[in-house]
């Protein structure tokens, strides 16, 4: 069977002010695969995610999204992409329960003004069960541990019932139990032919967890199946380089 595309990025350049963060990046994320994006700090991993999610407008380049057969614009398939931000980006003292937060995953389907119904609550609870937090549904979110917060965020993304899942360092600072639950669920998603893209920081676990790997350090240096691409040579190339791409051109 021919491998299908989920997201195709073509010659993407992204800059904050005059400084390029991503330079001429081209990469295709395959449908139904679990892909890790790896690279050193400041390599542009999160920037790539944010550009895919249309938070940042690229200087040049295109991103095509494939939910059905044809390529679409971001606007058309917004509801088919679920995003799990780093859990440090929100205030966990916000007055909300675990169920409140997971229900937010349903808001996109509800659209403007409509309130969540029983069906949405059922879906939210189902997803909480998947991440092993059924008994926590009525818990205030400030009382959760780091790993539990991450699982709540994952449950929220699952409640979106999307086709493409994008996660920003979901395993950073979580306990072993959470790590196992998250990776099992992500694997399960790919079995349903859903696409999972993860910014990953731990090189030790890439081979065990992922199907595909993308090496990034301002440019996309290498990408492909973990079995053939995750080599010492490629790792060294990505992490050793002291690149200052595009600075001359930028100025």
């Amino acid at each position, binding site marked *: 069977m021919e491998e299908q595309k989920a997201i195709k990025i073509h010659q993407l350049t992204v800059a904050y002010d005059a400084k390029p963060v991503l330079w001429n990046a081209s990469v295709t994320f395959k449908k139904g695969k679990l892909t890790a994006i790896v690279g050193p700090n400041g390599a542009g991993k999160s920037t790539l995610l944010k550009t895919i999610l*249309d938070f940042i407008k690229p200087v040049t380049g295109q991103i095509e999204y494939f939910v059905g057969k044809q390529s679409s614009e971001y606007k058309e398939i917004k509801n088919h992409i679920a995003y799990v931000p780093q859990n440090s980006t929100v205030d966990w003292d916000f007055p909300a*329960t675990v169920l409140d937060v997971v229900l937010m995953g349903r808001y*996109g389907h509800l659209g403007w003004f409509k*309130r969540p119904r029983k069906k949405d609550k059922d879906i939210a609870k189902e997803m909480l069960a998947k991440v092993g937090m059924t008994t926590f549904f009525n818990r205030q979110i400030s009382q959760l541990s780091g790993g539990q917060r991450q699982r709540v965020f994952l449950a*929220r993304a699952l409640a979106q019932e999307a086709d493409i899942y994008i996660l920003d360092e979901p395993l950073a600072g979580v306990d072993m139990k959470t790590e196992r639950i998250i990776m099992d669920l992500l694997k399960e998603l790919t079995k349903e032919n859903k696409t999972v893209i993860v910014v990953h920081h731990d090189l030790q676990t890439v081979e065990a967890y992922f199907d595909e790997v993308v090496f990034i350090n301002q440019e996309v240096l290498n990408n492909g199946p973990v079995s053939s691409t995750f080599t010492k040579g490629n790792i060294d190339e990505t992490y050793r380089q002291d690149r200052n791409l595009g600075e001359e051109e930028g100025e």
Partner: protein
Amino acid sequence: MMWNQMTLLFNDYTFQIVALGTGFLGFLSGVIGTYATLKKESLLGDALSHSALPGIGIGFLIIQSKELVGLLIGATISGLVATAIIQLMSKKSSVKFDSALSLVLSSFFGLGLVIMTHIQGRPNAQQAGLDSFIFGQASAMLVRDVRLIAIIGMIILLIVIVFWKEFKLFSFDPDFGRTLGFSGKFIEFIMSTVIVLTIILGLESVGVILVSALLIGPSVAARQWSNKLGIVLPLAGAIGFISGILGTIISSVGNRIPTGPSIVVVLSIFVIGSLFFSPERGIIAKRSTYKKQRKYFRKQIELLEEEHEK
């Protein structure tokens, strides 16, 4: 004697009007202020209100009367200009946000004082009481001012109800909200507008210096008592409402006591009380749980030691 004074006061038409105005204002500030504090924008509210002063003065110089709507439009414009300058400075220059904020806040406030002093020196009787905008004088409120507060307040509350889910989403996790297909810019705009309008409405009775306390205080107090936004919000409104009315009573009974400070003092009592005495989150409750825990641990250790000895 005291009782008589009170009944007299409560039967007083002017007092009823003013208390209604400040009470409603307190309610509104409590509700909207909760969003401002949750979004960590309470300082911006402070800057906005202080910077409203020159706008009030300039508004008066232009329309030559104390017509509230005119003055408040002036206040809004100068407040927004100031916040725009703060944002611009912290983003585009090397000045940090907190420095930009205090710099702009105090220079606008200074300019406001200059204009106010200039107006006071003019041989026109019209300006009397204009300086009440600094500390607030609720007794200057007219029936139509209260009506204005009530109408705009109702619209604001309606917006909160209609946008309930969207406001909650965007005050918790705006990035995630945008990925769901909601227009972040639109919701942020509505939320900011609602916050700005609430501040502006409070200027006359509470004054530019203290109006942000009315915005922050109730939500801080209310947050201590509940973990649910659906309860924190109305509770903050109730605390704001009671503070508004009690503050107005103190201000009316006393001789020339400005309303703003009275309201804020009452409010502060609520805040301090909540910080100390609320269950779970209160300082006292936390201390006792901590002590209980220590006692428990000590006992566990003792048991272990006993077992060891055996």
